[in-house]
């Protein structure tokens, strides 16, 4: 069973590594990600939002949904942990204090 798991892992890894061969070169200005939206953000973000920091402009405005649900995810995680682990003081301890 362990050998089978190892084999599966190796095959999947090999396929994924093979897939990376089709990636554009790192920092290639002609890659699809760089010619469509990035150029628009770099040219228009300051003019459209008056925020000199492009990262903040993209994070808070263009990708507002992403950031909103990031916040909601963190909020839900904290809420879940607190509601599961929080316990009231037991009565014996209350009598002592």
């Amino acid at each position, binding site marked *: 069973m362990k050998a089978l798991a190892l084999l599966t892992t190796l095959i999947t890894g090999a396929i994924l590594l093979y897939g990376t061969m089709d990636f554009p070169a790192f920092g290639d200005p002609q890659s699809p990600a760089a010619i469509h939206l990035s150029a628009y953000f770099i040219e228009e973000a300051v003019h*459209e*939002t*008056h*925020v*000199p*920091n492009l*990262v*903040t*402009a993209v*994070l*808070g*405005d263009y990708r*507002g*949904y992403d*950031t*909103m649900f*990031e*916040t*909601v995810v*963190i*909020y839900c*995680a*904290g809420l879940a*942990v*607190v509601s599961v*682990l*929080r*316990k*009231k*003081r037991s009565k014996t301890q209350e009598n002592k204090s």
Partner: protein
Amino acid sequence: MKLLQERTAKLRVGESLIIQTAVRIMVPFIQLFGLYVIVHGHYSPGGGFQGGVVLGASFVLLALAFDQKFSMKYMSEKANGVLGNVGALIYTGTAALCAIFGGLFLDYSALDKLIPLGPVGWRSFGIFIVEVGVGLAVMSIMAALFWVLGSNGDMEEGL
């Protein structure tokens, strides 16, 4: 000298006067830096998440150097919960307000009808409001997670 000796005698195991004094001096500056990171997110690296974590870390530091009771004197559990909820509500509420005032969800320029700042001004200001909300939520969640996990759930005696 006598005062110092009295104070040192009162300390429990694991508490150090040097660390406590250093933390007492550092915490206001850490919190100020957290606020700076949130507010200055428009112009420099930073923003709600990073600033919120710095703010939350100040309470974690207090709880580590003193004890949990001491850190909860500065931010009670109830206030912390309220701040976290308000933070998440600020973000979603701003987004919903944009939709109510006739724009798209999260399109801050629609808020121009509420207070005329110009559509571009509102897009800038909207990002700021949202960052403050994120900062509040992250700060409260960081502190709450540490308090609950560190005190075994009863919020009495921490690490």
